[in-house]
């Protein structure tokens, strides 16, 4: 299975923010990339989700905090791809969520970083990055 660096593939509608340079494994969908560029295999350009460093437990904790902050009904689907804005988070909710994450994980999030978080996955990735630094 080929591995790609973020720079060699272009993404548009992908939830994971590419702060890291290395992509360790590919998520949904297998890509087999034969050297002679056989036409029967095409790169699914947009829709596969790359799994970055964030562990599922981290994502789940973020999901819990988001659910609580936004008082979401139990049947509301929330996953790594979920955008805070489409779940109904306004700026005060977002700040409260960030504060909740800081408390839960014992980290400190700067405004620049907080502003760049748009999805649950973004938040989980940032948390793991900050935890790594500690």
């Amino acid at each position, binding site marked *: 299975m080929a591995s790609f660096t973020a720079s060699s593939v272009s993404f548009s509608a992908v939830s994971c923010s590419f702060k890291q340079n290395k992509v360790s494994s590919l998520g949904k969908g297998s890509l087999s990339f034969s050297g002679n560029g056989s036409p029967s295999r095409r790169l699914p350009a947009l829709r596969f989700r790359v799994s970055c460093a964030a562990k599922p437990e981290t994502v789940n904790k973020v999901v819990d905090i988001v659910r*609580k*902050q936004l008082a979401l009904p139990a049947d*509301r*689907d929330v996953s790594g791809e*979920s955008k805070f804005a*489409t*779940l*109904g988070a*306004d*700026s*005060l909710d977002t*700040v*409260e969520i960030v*504060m*909740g994450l*800081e408390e839960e994980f014992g980290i400190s999030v*700067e*405004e*620049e970083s*907080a*502003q760049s978080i748009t999805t649950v996955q973004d938040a989980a990735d940032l948390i793991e990055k900050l935890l790594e630094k500690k």
Partner: protein
Amino acid sequence: MQAPFRLSGMRRGVSKMKLHCFERTFFHSSSSLTPIQLPSPMETHLWYVKPSEVKSGSLLNQYLDILPPCERENVLQMRGEELRKSALLARALVRTTIARYQINSHSNPRSLKFRKNLHGKPEVQWQFRDDQHPPPLHFNISHTTSLVACGVTTNAQIGIDVEEKHRSIKHNILSFARRYFSKHEVQFLAAISDPQVQRMEFIKLWTLKEAYVKALGKGFSGAPFKTFTIRFKGVMEGGFNTLEDLSPKASEIVVDSFDDLADLTSNWQFSLLELANSHYAAICTEKHGAGSDEGKRNAPGKLTVWKTVPFLEDECVSGTAAVKIICGVQ
């Protein structure tokens, strides 16, 4: 009478909605918006919609209809009926409001184009000929699921924020303030003993800070909340007076910035209102003639407020119980 209007979460195109016909004439988009003159430089216009008062399926259809495909997509992506409705009304409100001013004879809300500035602040992308200057209209919107507002000014940057008065804050107010607000603001809030009052003062302060950052247009990180203090002048000076001393006539809202060059923060003026008995609304606008002594002396601007259901009805509510001025304008 009619089936409840449902914005289905479809991602491709607009679902075929059944148009419900009423006795009312079915209005064509551009012909049913009452035209209005731009506010004068010292004036602010505020338009708001209450989603709960918009029940007509055909109206909501009309609103969907004036949006370009990308905005329609954004609306339909919202998770939940209430969120979709307020997102739809936000776009409909901003388009219909700007269309009313008929800038360069543009009166069709459908034809407006928008873009975001470097920091993500929405602005109109005017279609103008080379010999014309960009029109001086500025706007800013804010919405909750229960109220959507759009502020308009001429030749002045504007930022607005609305919040439900009874919004619950999940964190301890003072912990939150210590983390995000300035030292002076924490002191102000800490001095309030009644937790209900403290929560409401917190929300007022939040809306004012949001409105300021939005007026600046530099994004949340461009003016971190901790780096500036918003205060009621007349309260902080000479110690902390009780809240009863905060009469609208006696005080004004000012901002002090820590890393600001002298006088830049005197370029901004604030108003704080209670709208429709349910929301706090903060408006921050650029002051004119800020270079002159006259400009610096705080002449409160004029504010006109309309409650609207676009294409259906407008009601000027300034001076009525729907608009309670807490501080700032006349």
